[in-house]
Structure formats: structure tokens, C-alpha cells
């Protein structure tokens, strides 16, 4: 597969998932860049943010212009997120995230089943 086809595919799939599900762009773009483009981990993580930010802005504008927005809810969640992001960064320095990751993956699977049923 040529490099340009790979870049095109990664872009399309990342944008589609991020727009359709409002999330998951990084979860796709990071491993895609590592596996298909052979980028180093930290470069892939940083580059993914540069990719997903403009895609997220496009999707957010489309959602908002179609009235899918609750500013009160959004602001409350963001305030929690700022504090959480700070704690998360501190926590990461102190304990390995391996076990936490497994706990969160269990939550994701359980929540997914509840959402499907």
C-alpha cells in the first residue's frame, strides 16, 4: 500500500469515527500511525493531537449548528475535567496505569453492553 493511500485512509477513518461517535479519533489515529507509518510512540501521540483538533472543531461546529448542545452540562463537565486532568497527570507519575487501564477497559465493555441492549 502506498504511503499516500495510507495517509488518506487514516484521515478518512479517523475523521469518520470522530464525527460519528464524537470520540475515538485518537484511539484510531495513534495505533494507525505506529503500525502503518512506523512512527515512534511519542511522535504518534503528539501528531494525533494535531490531527484530531481540527477534525473535532469541524464536528463540534456541525453538532452545535444542529442544536446538539447543552452548554450548562458542557461547562460543568469541563470544570471537572480540568481538575481531573491535573490529578491524572500527577497520578501517572506515581503509580503504573496498567491496572487502572484494565479497570477502565472493563467499564467500557460493561457500558457498551448496556448501551447496545
Amino acid at each position, binding site marked *: 500500500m502506498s504511503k*499516500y493511500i495510507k*495517509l488518506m485512509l*487514516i*484521515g*478518512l477513518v*479517523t*475523521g469518520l469515527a*470522530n*464525527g*460519528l*461517535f*464524537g*470520540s*475515538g479519533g*485518537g*484511539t484510531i*489515529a495513534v495505533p494507525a*500511525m505506529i503500525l502503518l*507509518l512506523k512512527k515512534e*510512540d511519542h*511522535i504518534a*501521540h*503528539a*501528531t*494525533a493531537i*494535531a*490531527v484530531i*483538533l*481540527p477534525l*473535532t472543531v*469541524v*464536528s463540534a461546529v*456541525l*453538532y452545535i449548528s444542529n442544536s*446538539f*448542545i*447543552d452548554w450548562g*452540562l458542557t461547562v*460543568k463537565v469541563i*470544570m*471537572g*475535567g*480540568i481538575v*481531573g*486532568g491535573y*490529578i*491524572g*497527570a500527577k*497520578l*501517572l507519575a506515581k503509580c503504573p*496505569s496498567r491496572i487502572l*487501564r484494565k479497570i*477502565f*477497559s*472493563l467499564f*467500557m*465493555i460493561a*457500558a*457498551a453492553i448496556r*448501551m447496545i441492549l
Partner: protein
Amino acid sequence: MLFLIGLVSGIVSGMGIGGGTILIPALVLFAKPDQHIAQSVNLIFFIPTAVVALIIHIKNRRIDFKTAIPIVVFGILGAFIGSRFAIKLPGSVLKKYFGVFLLILGIYEMIRKDGKKSAGSNN
């Protein structure tokens, strides 16, 4: 409760796991907004954190722009198609599609080998 959901999602993002994959299901299950609203909260939530992370990464020269630019060009096309499709779907249907996507990501997160991943806020 909403603050708590934001808090947990922030912690998760800080650890380099996609915050949205926790934030959206937590909102839908505990605060019960429409699926579209939960997704828009996550999209907007991501923007300020990503701007801060991006500035730090640009300063540290960690961004491969030659790779990012072509991905963004096609990514914007994908984002248009994906968002239009989501907007047209009823919330109850979108929620089920999201559930399938989340299940795949959850299983992937469960079975993948844990490398020494650098922290970064991924959506």
C-alpha cells in the same frame, strides 16, 4: 455528579487513554442526555485540552507535520461525512452504534500489550 464524571474523564485523559470513551458512556448511563448531546460535550471538552497539549508538543518539536497535514485534509472530509451521518440518526440508534464501537475499543484496551506509552490527551 456531572463534575465527578468530568473529573474521572480528566484523570483518564491524563493517563493517555481516550477520555471520551469514558466520558460519553458515563454521561449517557448516569446523566441520561441524548446521545448526540453526550457526544457534543466530549467534542467541546476536547478542544481546550488539545490546544494546551498541542502548544507543548509544538515547543518540544514532537509533531510530524508532513504526516499530520495530509491526514487532516482527508480527516476533515471524514469528519463532515461522519458528523452529518450522526446528526441524521435518531439518538437511540446512534447510542447502539456507539455501544458497538465502545465494545471494540474496550476489548482492544483489555487485550493489548501495555507498552511504555507517553501520556497525552487523546480524544
